[in-house]
């Protein structure tokens, strides 16, 4: 088990390899379809994404009526492949060093990871409750006009459990498992 602590750096990220089980602590930002689309359209992000991690997640967030404080009640990852056309651009233009999601991503993202120094962390799909428990506070919210699940939520997490499935050296567990299972399947057909 490895630990990754905020502030994140290119150097730390480059040390991570496919198959590493990692606990992330510190700040992460949510961002899914609408955020990526807007960034792609050329709108500047409302927060500095340099050396930050983006989490593909549409959290369920409740706001306390009196204190106005936000609380995340469910926060599992959403399918990442939908951001495949845009993710590498966000790496190139804004310097993110990590993406958290589920299901893995394709060759464009893998190339981006290698070129710009980024990794893909796979969270456990469906584990909404366990992952929500790891979110200690909501620090801010931006682009709420996109709707709550699509907004950019700034979250403080502690020991957020993920697995590196795409690293910054061209390694992709998804590509490996896909090709090994394909080969094995031939024998069973």
């Amino acid at each position: 088990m490895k630990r990754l602590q905020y502030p994140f750096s290119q150097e730390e990220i480059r040390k991570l390899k496919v198959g590493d089980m990692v606990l992330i602590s510190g700040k992460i930002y949510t961002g899914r379809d609408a955020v990526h689309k807007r960034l792609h359209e050329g709108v500047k992000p409302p927060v500095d994404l340099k050396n930050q991690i983006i989490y593909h997640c549409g959290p369920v967030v409740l706001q306390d009526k009196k204190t106005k404080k936000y609380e995340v009640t469910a926060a599992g990852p959403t399918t990442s492949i939908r951001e495949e056309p845009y993710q590498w651009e966000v790496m190139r233009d804004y310097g993110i060093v990590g993406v958290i999601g589920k299901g893995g991503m394709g060759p464009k993202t893998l190339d981006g990871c290698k070129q710009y120094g980024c990794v893909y962390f796979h969270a456990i799909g469906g584990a909404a409750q366990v992952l929500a428990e790891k979110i200690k506070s909501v620090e801010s919210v931006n682009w709420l006009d996109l709707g709550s699940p699509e907004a950019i939520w700034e979250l403080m997490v502690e020991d957020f459990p993920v697995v590196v499935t795409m690293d910054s050296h061209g390694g992709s567990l998804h590509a490996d498992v896909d090709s090994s299972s394909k080969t094995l399947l031939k024998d069973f057909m």
Partner: protein
Amino acid sequence: MGLRKRPTKKVNKKVAKKVTKKATKKAAKKAPKKAPKKTAKTTKKKAKKVVALPGLGNEVHLFNSLLELIRVTSAEMPDDIQKVILEALAREEKNTTAEYAMNIIKANIELAKKKSQPICQDTGTVLFYVNHPKELDQIKFTKTLHKAVLAATKKGYLRQNSVDSLTGENPGTNIGPGHPAIHFHQHNKSHLEVSLMLKGGGCENVGAQYSLPHNELGAGRDLAGVRKVILDAIQKAQGKGCGPGVLGVTIGGDRGAGYIHSKELLLRRLDDTNENKELAVLEKDIVETANKLGIGPMGFGGKTTLLGCKIGALNRLPASFFVSISYMCWAYRRQGVKLKNDQSIQKWLY
């Protein structure tokens, strides 16, 4: 559950029916003698059962029962599924990413139940299966059901999860054309049985339909061909459907009926045995073979790729041979209730 029982022991069912019929006849004969002894209350109830039908007189009870069904389905994993998940966890090698994933899944199931919160935030397509006596007013029932779905959405048992396909607009109610899906089946019993399945989007996306023969896979119009296309679908799904999952597979039907039936097969208990021997063998073979592919939980690699497989058949046209495959993620949320005559919950089906 008619559907759940359909694949298991038809003979028994027939016998059971006869017995019940006899029993009912007997009861009917005896009834007049006994009647005076009964309290006014029970007589009233009986009268209600005949005149006031499900969804009418006891709307409040029905609403409460349906709301509770939604809450429990969303937050609590049925025993038969929990069992296979724990077995899968035990099978994985220690200190692997597969074991890591299964441990988090296990912890998540426990936490969701404790907090009475959705197991997964994608509360999925809401699919109801209603077995009802012939007297049910489906329109009234549907109205109450919609009220329960709306209340469940407000309470957070269901996420606001149903959007207009053309505009992308989310009314926030989970109610709209085709949603929730309600499948009515009439049965010869006097009570209502309502089952619910919450089927997530990630796993629905990896479902597949094949038309046989399939030249590329060398799959012909026989069970060997069926086996090939199922295995192909599993390999293509990788971990994207939040595996390890369970398959519902329908051989035959038209394209629409095939998919609908493949989901209904997911109402079967995971530990039942297919009454059709050939299909029982195929189900077992699919699970064993899938687990040799090394795809593993979340596609991380590992020993468990599939937790179960349920296969059924519908008649087809001589010209068509479809195999329709529905993939259910590990967050296999389905429950059911048998209702009393007053529409309160008599027992849970899983």
